[in-house]
């Protein structure tokens, strides 16, 4: 199995909520990928992820 197959397997074994959180987190991280890592950015990203998690898990 190649690495993409392994990743698919990991995602398949995860719960639906965890998968949704993973996808939301990737999108958020990608959108901030090019910004320099600093404390303010970390808080901003964590806020964005938390908001998404609250939407996904009621």
């Amino acid at each position, binding site marked *: 199995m190649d*690495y993409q197959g*392994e*990743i698919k397997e*990991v*995602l398949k074994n*995860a*719960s639906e*909520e*965890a*998968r949704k*959180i*993973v996808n939301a*987190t*990737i999108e958020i*991280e*990608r959108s901030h*990928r*090019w*910004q*320099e*890592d600093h404390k303010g950015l*970390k808080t901003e*990203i*964590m806020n964005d*992820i*938390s908001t998404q*998690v*609250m939407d*996904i*898990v*009621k």
Partner: protein
Amino acid sequence: MKLITLNIVNFRQFYGAHAIEFACDGSLNVTIIHGANAAGKTALLNIFRWCLYGKSILPSPDKIVSNRLIVESTISATLTVSAALAFEHEGDTYYLERSRKFRKFSELKVDPIGASELKLASTGADGQSKTIDNPQDKIRQILPEDIHPYFFFDGEDITSLADAEGKIKDGIRNLMSITVIERGVRHLEGCVARFRRECSEHTSEEAQGLDKRISELEDALQELDGTESNTQKQIGDIQKEKQLLSDQLKKLEPAKDFQFEREKLELRATALANDLAGIQNKLKQLIRSHGALPFLHSAVEEVRGIIEDKREKGNLPAGIKDNFVRDLLSRKLCICSRTLEDGPAREAVERFLCNGAVSAAVENTIQTLAGKLGGIDNDINDLFRGIEDLLSTRHGFEEEKQINNLRLSEIASELKGKDDVKEIAKIENRRSEIEREIQQATLKLGSIQANRVNKRDEITQLRRRLILLSDKAQKAEAAKKRFLYCEEAKNVFQAIYDILIEEARKSVAEKINGVLSRVTGNDFYVELTKEFQLRTLQRIGDFIGEIDKSTGQKQITSLAFIGALVDILREKNDRNHAGSFLRGGEYPIVMDSPFGSLDNIYGPRIARLAANVAPQVIVMVSGKQWLGGIADALYPNIGKQYVLVKNKPIPTTEDLIESKFVFGRTEIQAVKESDKYEFTTIIEVQHE
């Protein structure tokens, strides 16, 4: 990213305006920039860095203004340094310009005026141009700052790549976007901690304590209900016995009259108790509804005083009735009884009297107020009278009750003293005992009822609190679920990270060895350990042993590593698709003096490799590095060549001899004598 041109104005030794056009046509993808020592090769590498990210790693990063410009300018003059880079990326052409202003404050010193200014514009394939609002973010998207050192590098430092495991791991992580996953793991860890905190904040021990307390109180209430019921039954039983004893007494002649009288008295005692309770209730009611009135007494007196005071001061007219004044005037009489003749005098008196009269509305208001003040006085008096009446009635009832009780005691004593009929005394004694028991049981019943009221009140209060807390409990439940799912997502991320980093490690090692085999044949190969350490291995007979790398081997390994990364990124770019974790791209390699430690065998090989691996190669070399097979190896791919000509007031003989560059039939002297300034100019060499 394909570099097109670089324009420099007054940066370090590059006094004035200079331009370099880079080779970027298919196989003619190599640009060579020749320069003697200190001509500006490293400065040129730093111009790229400064233009892209506003940073440089020169010994004095802030000293970027040309010394000649500073000297030639007047004190307080504004000096501008700029660098502009044109490049193509993913089909668009970009024009990036960074400039910074300085003010001269002494002969050789300048101060920056604010930060550098960055402008970025792009032109699409359709010819439409646009200005990009966040130029720095866009540049970081095109070529992230953390990966640029793998493409813009100083050859003298490149050997450290092969030694430092951290640098290799960082390079792989950054280039292959694994940092996105790594940051995701870190940020999800933060979110897990947040939700865990939220969960514990909302899960209060208080709610559990309240639940327990309510259960205890409910159990206690049930117990009280049982006790109350038993006590009531006990009282009922005793009452029955008492009635039986009373009936027996009524049958016994000497006790009969006493017993009848006692029953009447007891009936009256019950009525009196009810009357007294009624009086008590009335008193409570009266005080509750009118009890505040006496406290108004001083306020009433104060209002009266104010009205009186205003009357005395004339603020409130003394009370000449409006009707009275009008009547006088209709009879043409003054208030002093004199006749008023028509004319100005009469009009004046009319005005005076009318102004002095109290309007009906004011008079009514004052009268109403006075009436209300009087009403309050009456209410206070009524209250006191009512209380006095009730107290008097209560006193009467209490006196009657006392007499009643006294007579009941006398009767009981009489009956107990009837020694001649022992049965009567015995019955009466038992009856007295029963009354005490009833009294005690009744007290117990009262205590039970009061206790139950208290417990019910407490339960009501606790339930109200619990309702508030249950809202928090729901939040705690939600936070718990979020925390658990977040933790699972974090573990998924970690697993993906492990898979990606392992995949990257394997593919990078494979690529490095592929590159190495092209450069070194099968002299040696590398293994990238799980700790991302490059081990150089050599086959010795039937054995494989780790070898200590020479400086040349280190340089080759490092360049092979960069070549491998470029290759991987190019492959990723070719099969880039939405949803993929990794994102590739095409990047140029800009190298300053990369062939310093390479011999005549490895040097040409690595030069040829660089020209073939990267889509565009820019090499800055000194005369010494351009000897031997390196020039021959790169020759087929050279599209552009430049010489950095160093102008200095007093060049040494060595400078003049060693800085002669020969290009076919063309000779260029790379160090020239200047009048008084040291600066560098850039000359393009026509490639033959």
